[in-house]
């Protein structure tokens, strides 16, 4: 298969970027999208041109490192899945493919297609944890958790932290990301003691990092590689309201 690529090139955070045209020729349909970029980069090297910088690591959809916008869609056309799980058989021969980084002001560009998502780490650092000191944990089966709650908690916990939700959102909102963590931890009894503090602090940092608000467009859910349901955002809102009421009551 052959493709015409239009790829965002930007030397560093401060420089201006632009779309540059490249050809990808004789690509097998069983090549993954990132392997196709590997091939383009090998060809660029052979012509002594600088390869396209893009991020990836596990290449099996779980580490959340890869982060491309393909033809305007975060992670490309094959949902659910990260870019590393996208195969060229999903494109038409001869197609023009536009490749950009995730576009979110809170994810500044480092180089070409590589972005800085440390804002997501800072949201978790604000309270996305249960303070369980090693050595003080009770026997694991001492608190039974209804299977339904555990399964729902797992659904939220499946978030891979890629940031596609913010990239797809017209408001660049990270609420699906934040909601997933808040829901995961508030659905298990172990998360109860810090439930109020957690949601207040995480939402505060989420806002301070410059992410926008949710206006229910559901774009986040549509691109999420881990299929996190937007209904967790409703849960986040409920958790936040509950926490505000408790906090104002002096809890």
């Amino acid at each position, binding site marked *: 298969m052959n493709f015409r690529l239009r790829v965002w090139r930007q030397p*560093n955070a401060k420089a201006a970027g632009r779309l540059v045209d490249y050809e990808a020729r004789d690509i*097998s349909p069983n*090549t*993954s999208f*990132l*392997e196709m970029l*590997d*091939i383009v980069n*090998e060809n660029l*090297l*052979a012509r*002594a041109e*600088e*390869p396209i*910088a893009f991020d*990836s*690591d*596990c*290449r*099996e*959809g*779980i*580490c*959340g*490192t890869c982060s491309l916008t393909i033809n305007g869609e975060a992670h490309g056309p*094959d949902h659910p899945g990260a870019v590393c*799980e996208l195969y060229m058989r999903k494109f038409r021969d001869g197609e023009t493919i536009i490749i950009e980084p995730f576009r979110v002001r809170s994810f500044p560009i*480092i180089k070409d297609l590589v972005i*800085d*998502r*440390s804002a*997501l*780490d800072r949201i*978790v*650092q604000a309270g*996305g*944890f*249960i*303070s*369980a000191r*090693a050595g003080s*944990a*009770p026997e*694991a*089966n001492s*608190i*039974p*958790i*209804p*299977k339904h709650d*555990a*399964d729902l*908690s*797992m659904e939220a*916990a*499946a978030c891979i*932290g890629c940031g596609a939700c913010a990239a797809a959102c017209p408001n660049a909102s990270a609420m699906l990301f934040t909601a997933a963590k808040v829901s*995961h*931890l508030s659905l298990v009894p*172990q998360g109860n003691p810090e439930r109020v503090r957690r949601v207040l602090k995480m939402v505060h940092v989420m806002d301070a990092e410059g992410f926008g608000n949710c206006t229910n467009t559901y774009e986040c859910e549509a691109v999420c590689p881990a299929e996190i349901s937007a209904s967790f955002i409703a849960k986040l809102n409920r958790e936040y309201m509950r926490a505000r009421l408790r906090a104002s009551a002096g809890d």
Partner: protein
Amino acid sequence: MIGTLDAKIPSGPLAEKWTNHKDHSRLISPNNRRKFEIIVVGSGLAGGSAAATLGELGYRVKCFCYQDSPRRAHSIAAQGGINAAKNYQNDGDSVYRLFHDTIKGGDFRSREANVYRLAEVSTNIIDQCVAQGVPFAREYSGLLANRSFGGAQVSRTFYARGQTGQQLLLGCYQALCRQIAAGTVQMFPQTEMLDLVIVAGHAKGIIARSLRSGKIEKYAADAVVLATGGYGNVFYLSTNARGCNVTATYRAFKKGALFANPCFTQIHPTCIPVSGEHQSKLTLMSESLRNDGRVWVPKRKEDCAKPPNEIPENERDYYLERKYPSYGNLAPRDISSRAAKEVCDEGRGIGPGGRGVYLDFADAIKRLGENTIRERYGNLFEVYEKITGEDAYRVPMRIYPAVHYTMGGLWVDYDLMSNVPGLFVIGEANFSDHGANRLGASALMQGLADGYFILPYTLPNYLAGQIGKRPPADSPEFQKAEGEVRARVKKLLDVDGKRSLDSIHRELGLLLWDKCGMARNAKGLGEALQRIPELREKFWREVQVPGDGEDFNQSLERAGRLADFLEFAELMCTDALARDESSGAHFREEHQTPDGEALRDDGNHAAVFAWEFQSDNGHIAPPKVHREPLHFETVHLTQRSYK
């Protein structure tokens, strides 16, 4: 410089060693802990849990990882589960049995005392993870669920769908985040360790390069902990993440740390087969699938090209069930992998190139219904469908073995300290617990055992004698090491050749897969040992590394890692040649039983081979071997049988 290797195994009965050792280890008082700086390199299950726990105890920790966030370490990709001797299933499990299964699974090439301790703390890990909110699978009763895994006859594996590694890592990442917020841990993401600094014989710091800015910096500490994972990517194609590398442990090796059993590399039996030459990695299909999937190939070569549903039941060879009736499809990894290679070598492999076998769920779907299978393995089936375009609910999966895990690693004593005082090595990066073959669901167990429950007790034992001994980061040893790192970066950029990194790495990988893969022999290893130095020379003459060092430069990162792989490959083959026996994953064709199983030589090889780096005028010289004999006081050495 190294006398006899002393693993410092505590005396006393096996079951009491760890308790006794903890009772007599030195402590650091809470007020003094903040006076110590600890460097932890790596943020996976081992490094992340160690950094979080040491921070929690009050030490000042600097944690480094090459990823843009500690949450992305490759532990995240582990699918199947984590073992623990909880005996929640009432099926006869115990600490002793987990210990015994692990020692036997490792083909009697690991230390009894270390493995017993691992089994002993395994139960604490589950408690700890549940307390952190890890959403393990549960039964309708609300109690924790278990599944069975290879090499065991009990159900002791805890799991979170097919994403156990992810959930355990997120638990440990969140604990780390809590310490980052508390200010006890300073995180250095996108920062790669390029050398170890030794001052007066002790590991006292590292030289690291920011992958973002290209800046090279010196970091001093009271102790250095390496948790940098395995070296499977030496084979180019493996189930490891693209960035996984040997650089940190190999640099430590070049500074005097011993590298133990580097030839012990695990080839995982259930991976998606290679499909084309530009493939960049291999994807694992969790071993847990073998609980319900049946492995087979056609009985006759002529049937290999037929669609699987046209091959009737009596024309299929369920070779694992046939050869190993008591373990069947759950035979350990090394044995299952070799069995797959054997049937493919006979010409009975299926799929492109005849390098594949079927993993068939038809019977399980008939017995349990598609919904149950979907619930157990749904995400794995989706991954398979994405990569191959095939629906495994309808047609059997095609699988083939692939490089997955490395049991070898830096040599450590019972305290997880290397022969270099102050250098601790944990998780996959050390060699200590899995012998010649790791059982499924034991890597997560070891990483977390080391980080949460072992290192926090053994590190103070070293630190207690080190108060006030941290050197300043501008001392001459640091400056010298920094100068060497800078010179090396410049040398890589100055080659200015024409060959791409990937093409050289692929060539190395194919060579190793052929000569030092699932089966090895003296002749092949000899050839590899001749060709690796040639390839290394070619690299330093012909490689093309564009850009400069003072910038975000992915080619430069990868070039440095490949340069180390090209040296390390030689060490691996040297070890494989020296280990003149078959054990676990190390299968020397010269040493097999009449029915083709690994034939150990306990008389001469019941030992750890720990290699010391040697150089001759700045060139690599053959490494020197030190042997640590393995003493078995509790288990009886037998020919491993899963029949």
